[in-house]
């Protein structure tokens, strides 16, 4: 491995190293507040490396570099996710400052684990080979399991345990699926698999060309389904979301989901991207999409705990995102509308959901209750926090002028474009259903009277992070051009 190949891995390496440095600093520093600051400053290094890679990739005619024994793709797609995950990591770290009282003396470990997980997720978006992907996935997931159990009270421990068991099961399914795929294609490199399968005869009459491949794909769908929280692999979501420390929940709901979609798009598009295969898994994802939206939205209505509600909402949003994936399947080779929709939606969803969770961190710190009705009167007690949460809810519904609106229009447009108008219809009907439970939060904030008039305090870093996410949500609703372009360029790599 040459030093220039080390450069290709530099963002991941520097994030992981940063995690180690934070752990060591923890031993030396008395005031733990510095740890978050150090982590935030340190994250500028991988961000810098990512920019460097972006410039490097830009000078490449194919727009793609492969390296480290061909196990990595470095392209705009991977770099898009590097930025997305780095941003989410930085924001979550900043917002965790308000949570530190409950973290006790393990703050160094907390930040360290988040960073380790981030390095795994970044690697995941760049992986070009099944075993690398699997290792990256484990690297991303295992720290999250520890983080889920971080509070060590009953709920948090239960959440960690559930997460551990179900992650293990899903990893096993995924690995099994990869093994079958390897058996059929004779290679673990995504690109080689793609070539073998597109050349393979489809005349056997079996689904996906052969029963072994079908089994492989079905098992991989199940494995990824856990990561992106799609129905019917969503049952871990509510308990883990409710029990985990809120910043960890926020992180799970956005970064982990983004990484899951990144790897899903990469594997299915590059390795299983031949035209006739696409039609088959496209239909599969379309069905999963409708199921996710419907189950997520309907069950969310019945929730009274806001974190549980957002847990089911994230299942529903996995459904909306799968609309884009299903449309990918129908797209022609040069059409990037579906995948770019997924990429853009993930960015808006990240900002929107982080906004919601950050406000929840601040308010629950004060009131101690996660029940939606207990957010009553926050419109007066904490006007800015309430406004941010309201913006976030409105964006989750998909009402302008927010990023959620543009994201939804864009992703549904991919479905309509590819003759999946019925899927877009299912999507919009579902967003109508979602109005009810998202508006319940807005109603609590502004309509219900509050018992107390006390102000709600929040720390400076949290307010900054919240400002960025909330303003970003609105900004993407009004001027989405640049991000849309970046998403389109990133997605074009997949489809070319």
């Amino acid at each position, binding site marked *: 491995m040459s030093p220039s190949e080390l450069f290709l891995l530099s963002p991941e390496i520097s994030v992981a190293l940063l995690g180690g440095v934070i752990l060591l600093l923890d031993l030396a520093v008395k005031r733990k507040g510095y740890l978050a600051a150090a982590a935030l400053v340190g994250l500028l290094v991988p961000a810098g490396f990512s920019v460097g890679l972006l410039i490097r990739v830009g000078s490449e005619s194919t727009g793609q570099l492969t390296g480290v024994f061909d196990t990595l793709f470095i392209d705009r797609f991977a770099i898009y996710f590097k930025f997305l995950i780095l941003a989410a990591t930085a924001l979550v770290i900043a917002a965790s400052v308000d949570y530190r009282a409950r973290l006790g003396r393990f703050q160094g470990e907390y930040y360290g684990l988040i960073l380790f997980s981030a390095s795994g997720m970044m690697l995941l978006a760049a992986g070009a080979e099944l075993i690398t992907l699997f290792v990256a996935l484990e690297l991303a997931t295992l720290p999250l399991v520890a983080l889920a159990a971080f509070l060590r009270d009953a709920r948090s421990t239960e959440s960690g345990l559930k997460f551990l068991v179900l992650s293990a099961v899903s990893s096993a399914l995924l690995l099994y699926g990869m093994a079958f795929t390897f058996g059929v294609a004779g290679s673990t490199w995504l690109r080689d698999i793609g070539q073998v399968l597109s050349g393979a005869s489809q005349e056997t009459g079996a689904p996906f060309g052969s029963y072994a491949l079908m089994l492989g794909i079905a098992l991989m769908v199940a494995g990824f389904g856990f990561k992106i929280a799609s129905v019917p692999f969503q049952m871990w979501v509510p308990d883990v979301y409710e029990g985990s420390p809120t910043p960890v929940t926020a992180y799970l709901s956005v970064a982990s989901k983004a990484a899951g979609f990144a790897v899903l798009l990469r594997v299915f598009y590059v390795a299983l991207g031949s035209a006739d295969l696409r039609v088959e898994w496209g239909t599969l994802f379309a069905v999963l999409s409708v199921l996710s939206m419907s189950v997520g939205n309907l069950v969310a209505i019945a929730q009274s705990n806001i974190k549980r509600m957002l847990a089911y909402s994230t299942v529903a949003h996995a459904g909306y995102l799968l609309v884009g994936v299903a449309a990918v399947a129908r797209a022609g080779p040069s059409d990037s509308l579906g995948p770019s929709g997924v990429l853009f939606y993930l960015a808006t969803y990240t900002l929107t959901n982080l906004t919601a969770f950050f406000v929840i961190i601040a308010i629950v710190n004060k009131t101690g209750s996660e029940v939606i009705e207990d957010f009553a009167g926050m419109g007066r007690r904490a006007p800015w926090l309430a406004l941010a949460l309201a913006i976030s809810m409105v964006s989750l519904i998909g*009402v*302008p002028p927010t990023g959620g609106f543009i994201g939804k229009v864009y992703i549904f447009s991919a479905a309509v474009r590819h003759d999946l108008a019925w899927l877009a219809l299912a999507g919009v009907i579902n967003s109508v259903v979602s109005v009810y439970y998202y*508006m319940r939060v807005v109603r609590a904030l502004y309509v219900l009277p509050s018992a107390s008039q006390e102000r709600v305090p929040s720390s400076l870093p949290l307010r900054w992070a919240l400002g960025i996410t909330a303003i970003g949500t609105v900004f993407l609703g009004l001027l989405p051009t640049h991000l849309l372009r970046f998403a389109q360029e990133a997605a074009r790599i997949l489809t070319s």
Partner: protein
Amino acid sequence: MLSAIVFLPLAGALLTAVFVRNPRLVRLTAAIFAVVTFGLSLVAFASYDLNKGGLQLEDIYANWIPVEGFPVRYHLGVDGLSLPLVLLTALLGLCSVFVSWGIQTRVKEHYVWLLVLQTAVTGVFTSLDLVMFFLFWEMELIPMYLLIAIWGGGRREYSAMKFLIFTITGSAFMLVGILVVFFSVGTFSLAELAGLKPGVEGLDSSQLLLSARFVFLLFFIAFAIKLPVWPVHTWLPDAHTDAPTAGSVMLAGVLIKMGGYGLIRISLGMFPQVARDLALFLAILAVINILYGALVTLRQTDLKRLIAYSSISHMGYVLLGVSSVGAAGGALSPLGVAGAATQMFTHGTITGLLFTMVGLVYDKTHTRHIPDLGGLASRVPFTASIFVIAGLAALGLPSLSGFVSEVMVFLGTFPVWGVITALGALGIVVTAGYILWMLLRVFFGPAQERFVHLEDASLVERVAPVLLLISIVAVGLYPRFLTDLFTSGAAGLLASRFGGSG
């Protein structure tokens, strides 16, 4: 100029939200912004060149979202159909600022949402890009929801949620419709799609990815819910009844006009052939609306609910006017469509006035229950006389504006759907019945003991009624300044889309 009219209220809202604390200053700021916006729309109204016709006062910023495969433009503009509605919105926006002068709770928020609402509605009437149109269409939801849910009465939260869910269901279907149209034709430009600018022909199944009737229906559901058309009207009585006065004024005055406007601009402008094929269906729905609305109104004992149901009946005339496009080639005249548009304007001012007056009556007497009222005329002469005039306008008394639009609708539609129009005209009889009966029971008869100390409307409270009254009488006496515009807009639509001579 149009951009200023659209975004001034929003600017006012932001300014108020961030800088203004004192309730009196809040009212003043809102009033200033509303007055300036109204002034600007008067200027726009006057500067429209009727001889030239067509699309004018355009504001284009082509590079709003210049992304490949998703070209959304910022494009505002008005023609004869939309300009009066812009004026109507500014007028009612101004009125609702004064109507809600007396609100004491959460004054600042109230005015902020009211101003945001005004921007949203004006945006709907002026947008010439489908995505922008949709953006403004949705933007109106949250402010209205909060206006009803916070400052409303009765079952306000229920009504607000019902309003929200009904409307958003419609817009969800519309969104799919917009996307289908976009991917079929390749443009979001409403100006081209609706025939205001050359470029796109009227859409039929051969150009669309899906059956044209299906796509028409996707849009129609949204507009029908908003208008509202029986049987998806049920949100309206609840929302109107439980909204605060200013909310009712805006809701009945302009929000439901968005449905009528969409019907004319999009359903007729984009799908002329389907609209023509389904015109009979629309006419039948219209008559059901008119008669059902009127008959249900007869049974109401709550003043606000009564006016709400009468709105359903009156919106039936809009639909009836629209259905006149079913005429065979030669018989096509812009009168029906222009009548429908005029009906929207006059109903906006009349119902706006009626709700204002009901609000006043309720503020003084603390009841809207008709049997509890009576003999108010001698106690509150100002309120009573304006209320009576508004009522007479609503039942279509000549020399007041309601008469003009109803006559236009009937004259335009009768040659096309004779029997149906005749049935619809029965609605007028019932209207006269419920309006006169209502006025009789509320204002006349023996004066009641407990109303002896009622005070008449204060100076601020008189602003909105007088403004609205002026517009009602003006349109009634000299309808041409309005109908010429609407007729030119309707003629333009028919000429470009229905092969009419114009």
